[in-house]
């Protein structure tokens, strides 16, 4: 039995404990319900960093910059929401960056060269992503090999396909409602922010208040126990892989609508950024415990640091270095500050 369980719960010492549970019987306020100890630690860290940047560069806090950062973080937060499900179920997806690039390219080519309506092209791209996610999920669960390897292979495969497709240059597309819905403004707020908030909120509810979310956590916490309790663990995981792929395709569509251009290498490296956002937020890489609000904060932190470093000027090449330091620091903080109740 235990032979198939790679991480017996007792020995995953590095993962630390789970944080405060939102459904505790003791009454807590709405904010308290959403923001557990870990999320709180990361929120404070984020606010302190913002304050520091804002004091050095007041332009950081202008409405337009705040909205711009909101828009910039949307793609990572959206992919991160799906990744939170997947990582909580104790799997990884390294192919999201490739799927992001592939699907936006597919959509653009269908619309520009085949004359297919952009909405219809979007649906086809999302279906393609569904198929890719299914392959990831089935090879992992039925083939019983680590998702790290399956999705690493998929990363190369999908990127290769995108490179082949990019031989056909994309013609210009006429602007239409598609761009309004995926890249426009609503009451002065970039729609990407609205999409992101909608997905984060729905994701949080699904994660915390539906049977599926509960199954995801049980599967990641103890797969054997979950299976014996009658939870279809394979199906749960496959769905998580599909969510991950579809979220990448949707993020790719947002990017395409916003930039009105595509490149086959778009999204390269996003897989690691997404995982970083999820883990910074407090989700355990060893499964069982996740938080979508945390992922949202993690994506925000990464964006704020990137934006802030450009604002501060100075040596541009050190920006990535700072980002690396912040990632480690953030995870150290919520591991040790927001430890347990």
């Amino acid at each position: 039995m235990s032979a198939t369980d790679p991480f017996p719960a007792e020995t995953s010492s590095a993962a630390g404990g789970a944080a405060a549970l939102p459904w505790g019987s003791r009454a807590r306020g709405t904010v308290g319900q959403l923001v557990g100890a870990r999320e709180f630690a990361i929120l404070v860290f984020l606010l302190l960093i913002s304050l520091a940047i804002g004091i050095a560069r007041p332009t950081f806090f202008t409405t337009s910059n705040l909205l711009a950062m909101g828009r910039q973080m949307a793609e990572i937060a959206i992919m991160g929401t799906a990744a939170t499900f997947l990582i909580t179920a104790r799997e990884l997806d390294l192919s999201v960056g490739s799927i992001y690039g592939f699907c936006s390219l597919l959509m653009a080519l269908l619309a520009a060269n085949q004359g297919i309506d952009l909405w219809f092209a979007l649906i086809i791209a999302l279906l393609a992503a569904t198929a890719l996610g299914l392959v990831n999920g089935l090879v992992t669960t039925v083939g019983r090999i680590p998702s790290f390897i399956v999705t690493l292979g998929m990363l190369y495969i999908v990127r290769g396909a995108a490179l082949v497709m990019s031989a056909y240059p994309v013609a210009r597309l006429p602007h239409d409602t598609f761009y309004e819905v995926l890249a426009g403004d609503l009451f002065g707020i970039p729609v990407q922010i609205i999409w992101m908030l909608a997905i984060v909120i729905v994701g949080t509810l699904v994660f915390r208040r539906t049977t599926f979310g509960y199954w995801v956590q049980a599967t990641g916490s103890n797969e054997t126990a979950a299976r014996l309790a009658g939870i279809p663990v394979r199906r749960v995981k496959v769905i998580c892989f599909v969510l991950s792929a579809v979220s990448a395709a949707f993020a790719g569509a947002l990017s395409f609508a916003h930039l009105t251009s595509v490149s086959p290498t778009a999204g390269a490296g996003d897989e690691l950024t997404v995982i970083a956002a999820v883990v910074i937020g407090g989700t355990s890489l060893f499964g069982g415990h996740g938080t979508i609000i945390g992922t949202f904060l993690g994506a925000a932190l990464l964006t704020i640091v990137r934006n802030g470093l450009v604002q501060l000027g100075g040596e541009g090449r050190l920006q990535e270095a700072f980002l690396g330091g912040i990632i480690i620091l953030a995870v150290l903080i919520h591991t040790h500050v927001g430890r347990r109740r």
Partner: protein
Amino acid sequence: GGAPAAAQDDEGLRFVFVTHDLGAGIFAPVRRGMEDACALIEATCEFLGPQTYDPAQQVAILEAAIATNPDGIATTRPEPGVYDDVIQRAQEAGIKVVTFNTNDPTADEVAPAPFVGQNFTNYGQVWAREVMRAMPDGGTLAITNCCPGHFALEERIRSFTETLEAEGEGKYEILETIITGADESEVFGAIEAFYAANPDVNMITGVDYYSNIIAQFIKNNNLQGQLLAGGSDLAPAQIDGLREGYVAFGLGQNPYLQGFYPVMIMHQEIEYGIRPITIDTGTDVVTPENVDEYNPEFR
């Protein structure tokens, strides 16, 4: 030399192109040029390279290609030194070698090879003069660079800065070189962040393909008239900007010819013994005035 051991079979010549980065958009028209040239002389051609920028991987591909004993190899040479050994070995094996698109000139000291592509020092000069033409009264500007350390880009910037200093009469101030990364979304975010901190900047000009994101930024934020763009290559957003006037110039390098000429000069040498030479594909200045004369697909 003449035509030693070439064309071992009667299937015609075989040429292999190897780039440092198959994903870069510039190579689509290069490839088209290669295919057209090969069709013309009935040669077989392959276009290879790593998925993302990776010279070490490119060298491994070159070595594998040498083992197949083609008639000629065309390769990019974005870093000095890396290619010396493999190019010499190809030449020793009787394979013609031409570089295209990117060539670090110092590499020619060790492993000389003809180059079909742009002269980056000239490019920097043309670029600086276009900025001065677009802002005759001077102003502040920022440069975007996706890939610090990349030879061609650094040389363009060096020559640009030098020319602007020498000819700009002190009217131009470069505020910053923004390191943007090579992912469109990230490039956009970096430009956005810079502009939030420096809303008074007059022009942002790009050294690389991602210049078009500056144009996109202006368009998305309705900054036409407040901020000027201009820079390398002619991606769709760049063309839009040129047509509407908020992009002052786009600088092409004729990538189609960078694929076409290498085939032709290797063919020349093998068939007719004509020594191949370095060909500058030039710096092609596209402005709002002449933008409609161009097919952007092949720039």
